[in-house]
């Protein structure tokens, strides 16, 4: 290679400058994209409860918090709740206090989600009962 040392240095510098974008891309640390867990937004779900024997109290818990409760409910109750409800479904905890020493009783719960999908679950017991129902 001919030419003055200054000229050669300038050419080398220009070559490096031209390759800069490629070099930066190759040597950059690989950063793993962190996919955030999708936030579940609050949605309206419709609940219908039916009891074979009236309990003294019924309560519904979602993620550890009581979201609905009623003393001496009617044989049939229907209401809507606004809770974070994922599309693939979720769980509700039911606390049903039937009278102690009474006969075996049952509760039917029908949940209708924001997409109008209906799911039914049943719960059986005597006295105070606490149970997790999965929808679906």
């Amino acid at each position, binding site marked *: 290679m001919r030419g003055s040392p200054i000229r050669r240095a300038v050419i080398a510098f220009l070559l490096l400058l031209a390759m800069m974008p490629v070099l930066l891309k190759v040597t950059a640390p690989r950063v*793993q994209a*962190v*996919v*955030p*867990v*999708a936030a*579940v937004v609050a949605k309206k779900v419709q609940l219908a409860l039916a009891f074979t024997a009236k309990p003294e109290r019924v309560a519904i*818990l979602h*993620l*550890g918090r009581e979201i609905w409760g009623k003393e001496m409910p009617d044989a049939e109750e229907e209401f809507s709740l606004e809770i*974070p409800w*994922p599309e*693939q479904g*979720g*769980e*509700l*905890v039911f606390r049903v206090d039937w009278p102690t020493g009474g006969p075996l009783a049952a509760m039917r719960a029908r949940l209708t989600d924001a997409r109008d999908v209906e799911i039914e679950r049943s719960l059986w017991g005597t006295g105070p009962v*606490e*149970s*997790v129902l999965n929808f679906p």
Partner: protein
Amino acid sequence: MKKRTFIFSAILLAMAALHPLQAQDKLKVSSFSTILTEIAQTVGGGRVIVTAHLKPGVDPHDFEPKPSDMRIVAAADLVLLSAKHMEGYVSRLQEATGTQGKLLHVGDTLPSLKLTVQHGDHSHDGEDPHWWHSVRNIIRATKSVRDELSRISPADKPLFTANAAAYITRLEALDQWVKVKVAELPRDRRKLVTNHDAFGYFAKDYGFTVMPIAGVSKNAQPGSKAVAELINAIKTAGVKAVFSEDIANPKAIQEIAKETGAVFSGKLMSDGLDPKVSTIEGMFKHNVSTIVDGLKK
């Protein structure tokens, strides 16, 4: 004559006193699992003497019986084993003691989960031995112990049946408690990062995904590639908390917590009972509360 009558009467009385004692000879049970010790004591009640060869807090993966254990096993009516390859010494135990007692491989009567067992630079498929992290498995194990005790001592079957029924009722209530506690946690947060792969049965029953650092044994050392992959997986899944185990060194998991920003949220009881939490119910309540409260934050 009077003296002779007195001696004769005394002998008769002594024989009469000895007879019921012989009839009430207790069954000797040798247990090589802290979980099975509780089950045998509860089901057997006053009709059994249970020797706990594996004491609470001892790692069953590393346990080896001593000569004093061998002597007790030799005279046992029933030997309870966790099984699923947990007791590597079992054939030697049988050979060395010549025990006539029944060896009940409790774990082998239960459904199995498969996992990958790492041995140095190679791995193979194996059975997960940690069946006691499922309450349903503990109920099944209770039934196995009840049936075996009843076979050995049919006269005591009503007692063993009643004791087992009362215990199973408590276990069913415990299972309900676990489900209600786990329901405090959104489904997408049920991801369990621990030292070793011990919570597969728990995960299957209660809807968790397990992300272990090492394999089935706490002695298994994770490679740097595996740790890097786990760190990425924790970040990607947005896991908020990681856990260590009672017997394991928590250093590796604490490092992973530092790298990922997850919170180190306490120690879980993985390989049976320990001196501080010495009941099955206590173990479940400790583990489930630690997991749920840690991941809820």
